């Protein structure tokens, strides 16, 4: 046994990852029953997948169905595996990779929208500037006192990122974002 000549340091061979990671948006239709979100999230943590954004809510009350929208990041093989693993979860009805679907339909990407509530505190000129910029971004004032505004903004994540960055010097003290709701363009359903 040429034991000393075996330079293997591990019981496992870990291949270097060469493929490039991409961000994909998945729509997951699940039975609305206790623990189903835990199963989905547990899959991601247990198998080491990333979650960039996650939203969930009941979409078809009579059919007891909820729709989970997950933005995840991985190489094409990993993304294929994520989809297959999600489909293995018993209460999962369907999984659609909206990003792949958009490509198949000849589109750049699915429609992705987010809502954010942004609280800005300030007085004087800063208040006027806040309102002017809110108007430019089509953000609505949903609450206000003489000291603060709460602004509601809808749009792509990048637009919200930008709005939040602009509001920072104007007295932004709190942000709440919903995460992405997404759908493919065109007349076909999921």
């Amino acid at each position, binding site marked *: *046994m*040429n*034991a*000393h000549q*075996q330079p*293997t*340091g*591990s*019981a*496992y*061979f870990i*291949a270097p990852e060469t493929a490039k990671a991409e961000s994909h948006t998945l729509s997951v239709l*699940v*039975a609305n029953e*206790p*623990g189903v979100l*835990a*199963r989905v999230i*547990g899959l991601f943590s*247990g198998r080491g997948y990333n979650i960039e954004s996650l939203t969930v809510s009941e979409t078809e009350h009579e059919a007891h169905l909820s729709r989970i929208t997950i933005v995840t990041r991985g190489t094409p*093989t990993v993304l*294929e*595996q994520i989809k*297959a*693993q999600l*489909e*293995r979860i*018993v*209460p*999962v*009805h369907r999984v659609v990779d909206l990003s792949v679907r958009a490509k198949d339909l000849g589109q750049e990407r699915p429609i992705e929208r987010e809502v954010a509530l942004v609280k800005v505190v300030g007085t004087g000129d800063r208040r006027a500037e806040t309102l002017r910029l809110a108007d430019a971004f089509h953000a609505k004032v949903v609450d206000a006192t003489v000291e603060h505004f709460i602004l509601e903004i809808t749009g792509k994540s990048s637009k919200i990122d930008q709005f939040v960055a602009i509001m920072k010097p104007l007295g932004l003290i709190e942000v709440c974002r919903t995460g992405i709701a997404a759908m493919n363009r065109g007349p076909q359903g999921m």
Partner: protein
Amino acid sequence: MTDSSNQQPDSNRMTGAEIVLKALKDNGVEHIFGYPGGAVLPIYDEIFQQEDIQHILVRHEQGAGHAAEGYARSTGKVGVMLVTSGPGATNAVTPLQDALMDSVPLVCISGQVPTSLIGSDAFQECDTVGITRPCTKHNWLVKDVNELAGIIHEAFRIAQTGRPGPVVVDVPKDIQFATGTYTPKPETVANVSYQPKVQGDINAIQAAVELMASARRPILYTGGGVINSGPEASRLLRELVDLTDFPITSTLMGLGAYPASGKNWLGMLGMHGSYEANIAMHDCDVMICVGARFDDRITGRLNAFSPNSRKVHIDIDPSSINKNVHVDIPIVGDVAKVLSDMVRLWRALPSKPAKAQTEEWWQNIARWRARKSFSYKNSNDVIMPQYALQRLHELTKGHNTYITTEVGQHQMWAAQFLDFEEPNRWMTSGGLGTMGYGFPAAIGVQVAHPDALVIDVAGDASIQMCIQEMSCAIQHNLPVKIFILNNQYMGMVRQWQQLLHGNRLSNSYTEAMPDFVKLAEAYGAVGLYCDDPKELDGKIEEMIAVKRPVIFDCRVANLANCFPMIPSGKAHNEMLLPDEATDEAVANAIDAKGRQLV
């Protein structure tokens, strides 16, 4: 209660505990393996009052799980275990994960603290559904007694359909006491989200058959999926091999699907598989993977795995496809169904490939076979572990034999030297590699096959992990034979320390070894001891003849290592063969301190 107003006119009204027993009976359960405790007492009370289902009392819940696994794998039926809340459930985790990785159908019923106490850190409470979520195919916490029967029926369906696996039904104690309605097993299935695909895509199968017909260097690589698919799958596999005359190898889990005496058999593949099987996998041009999952113990270094082949992959689990290895033709479906189509389409080929097409391939295989990669140097003074297994195999040939193993060197030698002719005869922990699996699994096998010869091939370290089940074997008159290849080491751990860690044998020597003969006698079993090759046959025959549980302490060469071996991180064509792993090298690998120990 003679008051007539108390009598229930509806025969489907009953307590939760009664529902559990009725649902088990309606799902064809005859045996359950379990251990009682506070949170399952109502169910145990029902068990006491009926005759149809036999309860096998184990001595630790892990034993119940492995016994249920052995029962399931030797019969093709669902194994059932029953445990209490808290520690009962947490002790069940290891067999649940074991069953998940080896695709064994298992239903685990666990007791839970009463619904009103859940979340209060009550006595013997744990979040069973939370803890077992990643180690089951699915699980349920029953919160309404009226849903209990439906959930148990669904549990059995999910456990045994698609890729089989373990499920847990957690039943709070108040639900066991509550009265509700029993719903019979549904004729049609309501759950639309779980509908496994069993029929393979016929176009993909046609493409696979055409690819196979064009192959010059084909190989069939089969796995546990063939066994799980049932006896028909093994029959069709044999038919396919006869039709195509392709060489065939199998994973650890798939042994017996194709008979080891078959002329196309190359032996097991993988880390400790045969030279011919691994080299053929490396050099083939068409690989047909049937119910196997490209595990890392099989593939070796992934980027050097069978570099020049086109690959067909038949698997019932879509997530197995392209998980580790990219395949050219994936076929999602049940092995038996797909093989049936494959055999039919092969027969329908307008022209079959000529024999000459694979002639050179078979010549190469003959050359690789001639390396005799399982060979070892026998001895007249000490029993070589391989020799012990060869004798065991020879002397058990005429018997109705089932083999289980623990995990380690003995397991690999058993896979190499015990030739399996039929499916469901070989129970071993492959994916999880659970030491302590074999003995309780053998108990489960013996329960299912009371007249069979059931042998747990064990190591001296593994057997001590679930030795307490000897009480169970004695109590239930299960004449299980434990054949310990005793080398006084955790042999595989030591082998890896020799290979990887400069021969520093950290904690792999079994100090304070019990006297296994006395241990057997203490339990009321039979103890046998042998350290002389000349006495071995007689002792093995004695073991077979005894109709009681036996511990056979077979003292083998302490420092024998398991070869051939693909060192991890190496490719199939970089195998370490036994003739290269000389005794001298092994001796040099052990330092002076180590020698004092042996």
